[in-house]
Each structure stands twice: as structure tokens, then as C-alpha cells.
């Protein structure tokens, strides 16, 4: 036991640990500032959000220490088990009473537990376990990646067919959180694309994502509109217009290929063109139906606001307008600690300023300098995670580390992007920073598992 303790401590990545502590402490101080109440000045007062956050941090540290004393093999062995457990929780939570319109919470005593936060850990473990051992799949896919080229643009369908297990691991929690409904967590699950990308799947996935985002935005912009078809008095919906444009583009490419491409290359290009066209049309329909049929009205509004389709600074755009005003008014050096006039719990101008919009308080009080520093810290953390991932001999650990990086990256990107108006309003927490027990514990567990796995990198081969 003595020996293992030494081994754990000496091999721990203290750099990662340090960044973790910096973020947690900065987060607690920030919550303290944002919700400070002169009547409850105590830092550890459990009636306050900062007091509770400290408590959750304590619980997280306790869990962390337990994790550090577990055997790595135990973690690997029960990866699926933990995944299954969290999926069960996601299923059960759907039958819990709705809070704020979503079945996302288990109310235990005075506290709420959000299983979707822990599901991220479960998915990361399960994915690492599955991809870590499935050499054959990987090999096959590596070959595919090398051979297929352009055809990967529509590689989604063959990917699903060939990687049924991987898709299932991701699809189950995705569907379950959509049923809550919790669009934010769903988007976070898409962060595993980053892992798949690193592991050799979907080579042009970044290009693919860019095109997909572009098409999605165009589709959303015209989704509710209709227009007159030129020369004919036929009213067409926006979606039909896009599909027709796609078909026209396809025709142009077809003609280009027909007249300007060598005959022997034509066949594969026709195939790629046809495949892309089909995928694109399905995608456009998927987005359109999702936007107009599945999304809640308030989610539609957020997207409309983000795209600039509607502008209503005091009504529907209230949140984002106030959030941006808080950040923008921070100036270069900020208003000073506990000096926020907007992102402040007593003023209530910025809603959810201790959770989803926590970045506003930080940014308003610490100004551009503080915001810059925080972004540097998060980016350092992300790069650190990549470095940790890349030094692993164990594929399990590497995939797990990339999962952690992906999850934190998406949380960071969407949360901060939302606060500064670069992303639509999606309610997900800023890791280690936002007030909330579930996310604090889940992110801590993510980090501590990684610390544990990483500490054994020299002795673990698998």
C-alpha cells in the first residue's frame, strides 16, 4: 500500500492538478463575488451558492482521492458498468417531475443531481474501452481513411453501418438527453467526434463539419420563409428553395465532370457527387424538421436571435443582451472584485449569472485582462490534455484523455461563445467555474480518472 501511494503521488501530473485547482478556486471566488450578500458574508455558509460550491468541491476531492486509490484495471474493467449505470440514471430521470420544463434532475434532499453530467464520464469511459480494444475496426477504418478521400464527405452512413457499436454508445445517451429535453448536453455529446477524428475516423470531418454548419445556418435562416419562384407564380418554402439550389449545383458539377474530367475518373466522381447530394438533402431536411418540429419555441427563439432573424433586446433577446452588456462594460481592467453592476446576484440584470452566465461576472469584474487570462488557462488545460493523451501507451487512456479534452472544449466553447454572442444561448455550465454540484463532481471525476490513468502510463501497456 505504501508503495502504491508513493507511486501514485510521484507519477501524478501536478501541472494538470494545479490548473484544476486554479480554476476551481477562481470559480468559487467568482461565485462569491457574484452572489455576495452582506447578510451572509461567510465564505462557507451553506445557505449561499459559494458555500455549497465549496461543499461540492469537498465532495469532489473525496471522490478524487478514492479514484486515485483505485486500480486502473478496475476503472477499465468497470467502464461499461459505469456507462450502463449512468444510462440507467438517464432513463430513470425521465420519469422524475419536470423542473423548468425538463426531466433532468433527481431531487435529493435540498439538492438536485443531474445524471446527464455523469453520463459524460460514462460515455468517455465506454468509448475508450470500446475503441481501445477494437483494433480491427480501427485498422479497417484507417485503410478507409486513406482510400476513400472525397467519398468521406458522405461517410456518415457507411460509418454508422461499419461502427454500429460506437454509434450505439453515443446514440443511447444522445437520445435520452434529447428526451429530457436537454439540447445543451446533446451538443456536448457531439464532442466525441473529436475523439473519433483523432482515432482515424472520418478524415475530412472538419471540412465536413464546416460545410454542415454552413448548410445548417442557411437552412435555419430560410426555414420559416417562403419565396416566389422567379418567372412563375409559385410560392415555394425556404427548404424547397435550398433543395432546388442543391440540385442545380449538382447539375452544374455533373456537367463540369462530364466535360472536363477524364473518363476513367468520372465514375468515382459521379458516385461522390450523387452521394454528397443525397446526404446534403437528407441533412437539410433533418435540420429543417428539427428546427420547426422538435425544438421548443424558446430554443427556436434563441437560434433566431443568434442568427439575427429577430432583434428584441428587452424581450426575447433579454438574456444575451444583458450578458453582452455586462461583459462589454467591463472594459480593459474590469470594474473590480465585487463591483459588478450587471452580472451580480443582487441586481439580477444578467440571468443565471452564477451558472450558465458565470463568465459575465468574471468578465465584468476583471475586464478584458481577466477574460484573456481565463481563456489562456482553459486553452492551456486543453493543450495539456492533448499532451497527456499523446504520451499514453495505453489506447484506452489516450482515447479517454481526448474525450475529456473534447467535453471540456465543447463546454468552454459554447458557454463562453454564448455569453459573448458567438453561439446561440445553450444552457451548459463552464467547467469548474459555474455553480452546480453535479457538474463540479462530474468534471472532477473526469479529471481525477485521467490523473489516475495517466499516473500509471509507465506501467500500463494496454
Amino acid at each position, binding site marked *: 500500500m505504501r508503495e502504491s501511494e508513493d507511486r501514485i503521488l510521484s507519477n501524478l501530473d501536478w501541472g494538470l492538478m494545479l490548473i484544476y485547482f486554479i480554476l476551481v478556486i477562481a470559480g468559487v471566488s467568482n461565485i462569491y463575488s457574484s452572489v455576495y450578500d452582506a447578510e451572509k458574508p461567510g465564505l462557507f455558509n451553506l445557505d449561499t451558492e459559494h458555500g455549497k460550491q465549496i461543499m461540492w468541491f469537498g465532495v469532489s476531492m473525496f471522490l478524487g482521492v478514492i479514484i486515485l486509490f483505485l486500480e486502473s484495471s478496475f476503472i477499465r474493467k468497470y467502464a461499461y458498468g459505469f456507462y450502463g449505470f449512468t444510462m440507467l440514471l438517464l432513463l430513470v430521470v425521465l420519469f422524475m417531475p419536470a423542473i423548468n420544463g425538463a426531466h433532468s434532475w433527481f431531487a435529493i434532499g435540498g439538492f438536485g443531481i443531474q445524471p446527464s453530467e455523469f453520463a459524460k464520464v460514462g460515455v468517455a469511459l465506454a468509448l475508450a474501452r470500446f475503441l481501445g480494444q477494437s483494433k480491427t475496426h480501427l485498422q479497417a477504418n484507417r485503410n478507409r481513411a486513406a482510400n476513400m478521400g472525397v467519398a468521406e464527405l458522405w461517410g456518415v452512413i457507411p460509418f454508422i453501418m461499419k461502427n454500429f457499436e460506437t454509434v450505439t454508445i453515443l446514440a443511447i445517451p444522445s437520445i435520452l438527453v434529447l428526451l429530457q429535453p436537454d439540447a445543451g448536453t446533446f451538443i456536448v455529446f457531439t464532442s466525441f467526434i473529436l475523439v473519433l477524428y483523432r482515432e482515424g475516423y472520418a478524415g475530412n470531418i*472538419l471540412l465536413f463539419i464546416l460545410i454542415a454548419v454552413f448548410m445548417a445556418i442557411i437552412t435555419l435562416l430560410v426555414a420559416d420563409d417562403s419565396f416566389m419562384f422567379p418567372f412563375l407564380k409559385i410560392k415555394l418554402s425556404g427548404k424547397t428553395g435550398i433543395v432546388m439550389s442543391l440540385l442545380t449545383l449538382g447539375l452544374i458539377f455533373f456537367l463540369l465532370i462530364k466535360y472536363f474530367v477524364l473518363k476513367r475518373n468520372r465514375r468515382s466522381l459521379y458516385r461522390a457527387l450523387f452521394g454528397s447530394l443525397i446526404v446534403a438533402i437528407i441533412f437539410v431536411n433533418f435540420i429543417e424538421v428539427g428546427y420547426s418540429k422538435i425544438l421548443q419555441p424558446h430554443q427556436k427563439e434563441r437560434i433566431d436571435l443568434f442568427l439575427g432573424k429577430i432583434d428584441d433586446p428587452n424581450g426575447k433577446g433579454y438574456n444575451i443582451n444583458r450578458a453582452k452588456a*455586462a*461583459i462589454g462594460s467591463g472594459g480593459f481592467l474590469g470594474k473590480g472584485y465585487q463591483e459588478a*453592476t*450587471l452580472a451580480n446576484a443582487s441586481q439580477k440584470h444578467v440571468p443565471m449569472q452564477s451558472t450558465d452566465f458565470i463568465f459575465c461576472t468574471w468578465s465584468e469584474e476583471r475586464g478584458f485582462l481577466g477574460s484573456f487570462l481565463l*481563456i489562456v488557462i482553459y486553452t492551456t488545460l486543453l493543450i495539456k490534455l492533448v499532451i497527456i493523451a499523446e504520451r499514453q501507451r495505453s489506447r484506452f487512456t489516450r482515447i479517454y484523455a481526448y474525450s475529456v479534452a473534447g467535453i471540456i472544449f465543447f463546454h468552454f466553447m459554447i458557454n463562453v461563445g454564448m455569453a459573448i454572442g458567438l453561439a446561440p444561448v445553450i444552457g451548459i455550465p463552464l467547467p469548474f467555474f459555474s455553480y452546480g454540484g453535479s457538474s463540479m463532481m462530474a468534471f472532477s471525476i473526469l479529471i481525477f480518472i485521467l490523473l489516475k490513468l495517466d499516473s500509471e502510463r509507465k506501467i500500463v501497456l494496454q
Partner: protein
Amino acid sequence: MRDIENRKYIITLLFILVAMIFVGRLFYMQVVDDKWKERAAEISENKVVTYPARGIVYDRNKEKIIANEVYYDIRVIPSQAKNTDSVALVKLLDIPMEEYVDKMNKARDYSYIKSSELVRQIPPNEFAEIAPQMYKFPGFFEVARTLRMYPKNTAAHVLGYMNEVSPTDIERMPYYKAGDFIGREGIENKYEEVLRGKRGVKYLLQDAVGVTSGTYEDGRFDTLALQGKNITISLDWELQEYGEKLMQNKLGSIVAIEPKSGEILAMVSAPTYDPNLLVGRRLGENYYNLQEDTLLPLQNRATLSKYPPGSIFKTIMALIGMQEGVITENSSFACQKSLVGCHNHPTAGGVSDAVKMSCNPYFYQVGRRIIQQGKKKSHFADAAIGTDIWADYVKSFGIGTDLHTDFPGVIRGHVPTTEYYNSVYHEYGWAFSTIYSISIGQGEVEVTPLEMANLACIMANRGYYYYPHFIKEIEGGYIPDIYTQRNYTKVDKKYFEPVIDGMWRVVHEPGGTARRARVDSLNICGKTGTAENFKMVNGRREQLVDHSVFMAFAPQDDPQIAIAVYVENSGFGGTWAAPIASLMMENYITGTISDTVKENRILNAVLIKDDVSNIVKPKK
């Protein structure tokens, strides 16, 4: 598999790229773009404007003639207004039910938690009845605001009134914000900037529902409201009120000036109105009624009307004649009625006689000698020179010139010049024979009542005047120098005595035209006039009954008051204008009225007729 190993760099690059985009965006939002700072201030700071009390206006005897009074607006917070007995409330506040329902709906639309106005500007006496009942209506509360009050109920035209600024005012004068009040007309308008003071601003922090939670930056950016300055004007409110009483049931104006200073003692325009009508919540309604009145009570006849001066102008003609050397004090002209009509009187043996008897042919001769001085062979060229000489003299009496009176909307009279006549006729197309009626104050010469009173001052001062003005003192300020400078006419002092002697005789001697103006102790000097006037009646330009005009000053040797009185369409100057002037002067100088019969005759006279019955029937 190198390309797959390279993907770690792409992922790292992606992280860095997002970080750079965020940093760039944050730099723009927080450092470059000020939009969000303004927006933040808009959201979190409540700019509370503190209105200073408007300056008080005193009359020359330090009596308050414009004061402030607390009025009450009734406001409502919809979220707190529960179970309102709307029928009782509507009855209490004296507003129609529809208005109440409409205002309540608007209030709810605006905000549930912020207050909206329900009734504005309830006067204190009405509010005294409402206040004890207010507790029955939770959510409804009063907000005090200061409005003007005019304690003497007099001098409406002089004092002016206030109302809310219009969008065009705000555009023109950025100081004002919607809902501000601004002085209109009169002293309220002229001394607006002095009286209004300066608004103060307090920045308060407010939370998301608009509740104040402290001062912003400990009040570092707050400014204190600057109290409006009190001013004293030259008006004598008792004289003013007396003048208004004398002018009741008459149309016309009185302007009284202290010759020694140019201070305006009274400026009456009849009909007048109670200035307090244009305060408070019935302002709009009352203003509309006054505006629709065919007797034009809102018009200040003392500064906005001009008439031919009539015989009063003969005093100026005599002075110019003597100064130019074309007549002497003792020049005598026969009353030759073939030249111009006259009444029966003995031949005037000199200037004094001529003024006393107001002999038309005498002044025809004087006018001809001024206009046709024989400087050019051509009759027409000669008249052109003479007319400009004459016009320059007349203007030196302040007629048709800027009198720099501190009052808005003062018009000028008209002095025809050679240029003017050339444009009416053609050059060398006119001579004295064309324009002779100016010598007896008819025709193209026009003066305003204010200019006429100023002429009385010139007579009293024997040749100079101060610009007529109202301002006596601005608290902590100075009175402009222009009001202490003498303005000399082009006529020497020595020529005034025979004219003034004539004016004394007008009042005191048998055969004088204004015997009714006589007050034994006062030595009033005056000159009557009748102003011909024309008006469009039923689409035709008709001559109406002459305006009765009188200009006077008193006492002769130490003049304390100079006055001009116009009574519209009342005929000969001696009949109505002269006694009114004498009563005014007696009241001002002695404080009593010796001849109550004269006073009652004026007070009881009703001289308002409709235009049709005023038409002068052509003589057969």
C-alpha cells in the same frame, strides 16, 4: 499513418483558433466598442432628474406676481392596484370612466411594477379633497410637482404662460426633454433661461425590476439642480390690475412707462384672461377656448398691433418743422379746410395753439414745408429728399425701429421712406400732394401702442428715451447697459417746450381736445388722436369706427408716468382714451381717484360691438 498522427496538431490548432476568436471578440467588446458600456449604463443606472424650483417673479413693489405652487399627479402601480373600486375612484378624481380604463390598460402594457401616470396636475385645493380618500385605493399614489401660479390674476399677456415642450422645441433646444415645461409668451418666455435654473442629475443603481439599490459610484457623476433665479420686473401690479379693470368690456391696449427709466409700469391688452387658466390639467381645454374666442384674448394688442397714430403724430411734425427751421414756434397758418378737413376752431397762432386745437390744415402746411424744402427744382425729386429727411427724424423717435424691449413678439411700426413710396408709386411719380396725409398721422405711418407710449416718454423727457423694458433686477445678475442709455431724438430739447405747452393746453384749456383727462393736481400733458382703421368684413374692406387714441404724461414738470391708450372702434380720442389715461396716471401718482363719476363712466362703458355695426356709413 502520419496524417492521422498529425491530427493532434489539428485538434490543438482548433483549440487555439477558438481561443483567438474569443480573445479577439472580447477585445472588441470590452476595449474597442463603447456600445455595450452605454447599454450597461442604460440598464443598470437610473438617471433621476431633479428639477429646480423655477424663479419667482416680483413686481416693482416686490409683490410676487408669479409664484410656484405644488400640484399633484396621481400615479398607479398596476401590480399593487388590487380590488380597485373604479367607480368611486373615477368620481373622486373627476375623470371619465373611459379615460380611466384606457389609462389603466396603458399602464399595464407599460409595466406592472413601474408606475404610470393616471391624472396629472391636480391643483392643491382639489387635491385637499382627494387626499383623505387615497388610502382606499392601494397602488394609487400622488407625486407632487411644482407648477406656476399667478397670485394676482393679472397681466396675463405680460407674464405669459408655460406648457409642455413640443418635439420641435426639443429638436431646437437640446436642453429640454420630453415632459419638460417651457415658458411661452411674455416674461416666462423671455426670461426662460434665467427662471428655469438648471436641472440636476442623480445616477442611481437599479436592479432588473427597476428598484433602486444605491448611488452609482457614490454620486461621483451627479450634478446638483441649480435653482432658477428670481427676477423683479418693472410692472406695477396694482396699476396693471386697475388698467385691466378700466379696459373691461373694451378692446384695446394701455402701455404705461416710467419716462425716467424706460421701465414699463403697465401693459394692458383688452380683452385679457386669468393667467391661472393656463396652468394645470385644464390648460389644453382653456387654451383652446381662448384661442377660439373671436375677440382674440390671447393676442397682446400692445405689442402685436399697429395703427396710424392720428393726431398724436402732429407733435412729431411740429418738432421736426422747428428743428428743420421750416417753421418757428410762432408760425401761424390759417385753418384752410380746402387743404384738409378740420373742425371749427380759431386760427392757430403758433405751435402750441396748433397742438392744442389739433388743426389739420396747420400741420398740412408744416408737412409740406418739411417734405418740399425746395432743395431740388423738380417737385418730385424735392419730395424724395424731403421724405427721407422726415423719415430719419421720425425714426429717431423710436417709431418703426427696434426698441430692444425685453419681450417676445414685439412688432415695429412703419415709417414710409422715399424708397417705400418709390415702390408704391414710381420714382418721381409722387410728391407731397400724394402723401400729405402723413402730416396728420394718417396714411402710411403706423405705430404700435408701445411706440406710442415711448413717444409720450420722449415728450416727458424733452427729447430722449430709454428702451422700454420690463426687467428691473435679476437675482445676482446685472441689467443690460442698453436699458440705462439715453436715446436722443434728432430734435433739440428747446423745441419741445411749445409742443408740451400745447399738450398741457389740450387737457386744461377750453377748446382743448382732452378736457376729460384733466386732473387738477397732476398737470397732465396729452394729445388725442383718432386712428382710422380698415378691416375685411364679409369679404369687403370696410372702414370701421376710428380707434380712440390718447398719449400723455404727468406731471408736466417732473414726469413720473407716460402713457398711451388705444380703445378700438370707440371714436374720438378725447372721449374714451383720454379719461382712461388720466385715471391710470392719477391712480399711479396719487394712489386715489378724485373723480369717481369719471371712473364709473369708464368702468360701466361697454364698447365692444361686432364688426358690421362698426362700419362707417358713407356720408351722404
